[in-house]
C-alpha cells in the first residue's frame, strides 16, 4: 500500500501532517456537526461557508491593491464567516419571516462577491483548493489552529452541555427558564463559522457542510444521547477522512471529494441498515 509506505517514510512529513489535521478536524466536525444537525441549521452553515469565498476574495484583492503582505486570506475568511453567521443568526431566525430567502440571499451574495474580488485582483489565482479542499496542502500553522479550535470547542461544550442541550431541544422552554437563548445561539453559530473556515482546508467550501452534517446525521440514527452522538460522529468523521485520504493518495484523486464520498456512503449504509434490521 503506497499510502502506508508513504506514512512510514520519515521524510514524508506532509502526509503525516495531513493525517494529523484530518484526525483532529474530526473532533470539530463531530461536535459542531451534532449541534448543526439537532438544531437544524445546516442551511445556515451552508450560507456561512459560501460567504467565506467573499472574505477570501476581499482579502486577496486588498492584499494585491494595497501591498498588504501580512494579509493572509484566512483573516478575510474568518471575518466574512463571522459576519455572515451574525447576519443569518440575527435575521434569518424569525419563523414566518421567510428566513430561507434571507439565508439563500446571503449565501449567493457572499459567493458572488468573492468571485468578483478575485476577478479584480491582478494576476492569476486558483480558487480550486478553497472550493474543493486539498488536505495535502495544510501547514503546521493549520495544525496549530485546528488544535486551538478543538480545545475551544471542547471547553465550551463541556462547560455548557446542559444549557446547549436545552436550547437545542426546546428553545422556548429554555427561554422561559431564563437562559439567554440568543447568546447561546450566536455563540454556536460563531463556533460553526470558525469551524467552517478552518476546515475548508480539508474538504473545501462547497463540501464542508456535508462533513458537518453527514457523520452527525448517521450518528443520530443510532445515538440515544447527545454526547454519544458526538463521539460516534467524531469516529465516523475520522474513518471517512483517513479512508478518503488513503484512497485519494493511492489513486491520485482529489482528497476532498473522496472523503465526502466515504462520509456519504457511510451515512446511506447506516441509514439502510437501520431501516432493514431495526
Amino acid at each position: 500500500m503506497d499510502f502506508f509506505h508513504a506514512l512510514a517514510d520519515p521524510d514524508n512529513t506532509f502526509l503525516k501532517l495531513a493525517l494529523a489535521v484530518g484526525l483532529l478536524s474530526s473532533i470539530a466536525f463531530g461536535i459542531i456537526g451534532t449541534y448543526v444537525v439537532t438544531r437544524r441549521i445546516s442551511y445556515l452553515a451552508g450560507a456561512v461557508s459560501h460567504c467565506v469565498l467573499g472574505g477570501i476574495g476581499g482579502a486577496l484583492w486588498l492584499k494585491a491593491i494595497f501591498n498588504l503582505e501580512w494579509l493572509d486570506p484566512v483573516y478575510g475568511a474568518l471575518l466574512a464567516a463571522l459576519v455572515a453567521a451574525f447576519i443569518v443568526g440575527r435575521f434569518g431566525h424569525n419563523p414566518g419571516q421567510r428566513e430561507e430567502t434571507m439565508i439563500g440571499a446571503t449565501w449567493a451574495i457572499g459567493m458572488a462577491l468573492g468571485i468578483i474580488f478575485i476577478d479584480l485582483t491582478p494576476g492569476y489565482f486558483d480558487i480550486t483548493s478553497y472550493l474543493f479542499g486539498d488536505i495535502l496542502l495544510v501547514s503546521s500553522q493549520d495544525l496549530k489552529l485546528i488544535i486551538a479550535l478543538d480545545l475551544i470547542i471542547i471547553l465550551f461544550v463541556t462547560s455548557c452541555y446542559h444549557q446547549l442541550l436545552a436550547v437545542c431541544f426546546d428553545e422556548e422552554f429554555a427561554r422561559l427558564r431564563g437562559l439567554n437563548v440568543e447568546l447561546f445561539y450566536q455563540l454556536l453559530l460563531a463556533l460553526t463559522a470558525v469551524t467552517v473556515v478552518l476546515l475548508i482546508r480539508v474538504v473545501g467550501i462547497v463540501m464542508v457542510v456535508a462533513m458537518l452534517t453527514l457523520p452527525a446525521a448517521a450518528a443520530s440514527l443510532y445515538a440515544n444521547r447527545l454526547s454519544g452522538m458526538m463521539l460516534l460522529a467524531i469516529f465516523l468523521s475520522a474513518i471517512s477522512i483517513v479512508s478518503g485520504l488513503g484512497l485519494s493518495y493511492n489513486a491520485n484523486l482529489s482528497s476532498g471529494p473522496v472523503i465526502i464520498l466515504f462520509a456519504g456512503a457511510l451515512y446511506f449504509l447506516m441509514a439502510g441498515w437501520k431501516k432493514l434490521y431495526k
Partner: protein
Amino acid sequence: MNRKPPIIKITDLDFSYHEHPVLEAVNLEIEKGELGSIVGPNGGGKTTLLKLILGLLQPDRGRIEIFGESPEKGRQKIGYMPQHAHLDPLFPVSVLNVVLMGQLGKQSGGLFGGYPRQALETARAALNEVGLSDCEKDSFHQLSGGQRQRVLIARALCTEPQLLLLDEPTANIDPRSEENLYETLVRLNRRMTILLVSHDLGFVSQVVKSVICVNRQVIIHPTSNINGTLIKEIYGGDFNLVRHDHRCDKDGHHPNKPAV
C-alpha cells in the same frame, strides 16, 4: 379578611396578530388553588392567552400581572408544559435530562456547568409524581406519545412551580393514561394552582373547579354551571358543535370517566 393578590390578574387586555384581533377586552383573575380548564374553539385564542401569561407575547393594550409582577419576572414561578408536537421526535436525550431542564436557571445564573445533586433529587421526585420513575434512563424518543407528555409534565414540575400551565395534556393519549393524568392533577392541585387547555368538556366538568372560555373574549364559569346552553355559548352555536364533535365527545365518553 386579608385577601391575597390573585395569581394571575389580567386587566383590559387586547391582542392581535397582524391587525387581526385575537383577544379583546379580556379581564381575568385566577386565585390561588384554582384548577381551571381553558376551553374554546381552535383559533379562539387559548394558546395565545397562555403565551401572554408566560410573557412570550406582548399585549397591544392592558396589563398582565403574574404573582403581582410582570410576566417576565412572575414566570419563574410557572411550570409550563407545551404541546410536544413541536419537539424533534428523534432528538437523542434521556428522560432524566429532559426533566432536569426544569432546574435550569435555578443555580446562580445557570449559565454554565452541570446540575447540583439536589437538582437531581427534584427531577427524580417529579418523575415519581407522574409515575415514570423506572424510565429515567430511557431515551425520550423511544417513549409513547402519552409517556412523552408525562415527561414534559415532570419537567414543568421540576421547576418547582406555584402555578402549572398545561397546553393540551390530554391530546393523543389513551383513556387509561388520561384517567391517571386526572388523578395526578387532582393530587397536585392540593399544593399548586393549575390551568390546562383541554378539548375534552366531559373531563372538564368532572375534575376542574372552573372553566375559562376563550373565544376572542374570556369568560370564567364555575363548573356547576356547565350545561348545553353554555357549551353552545362557548363554541358559538350548533354549527360549531357539530364541526368540532364536542357534543358526541361529551356524551360518548361520559360514562367512562372516573368519579372524583
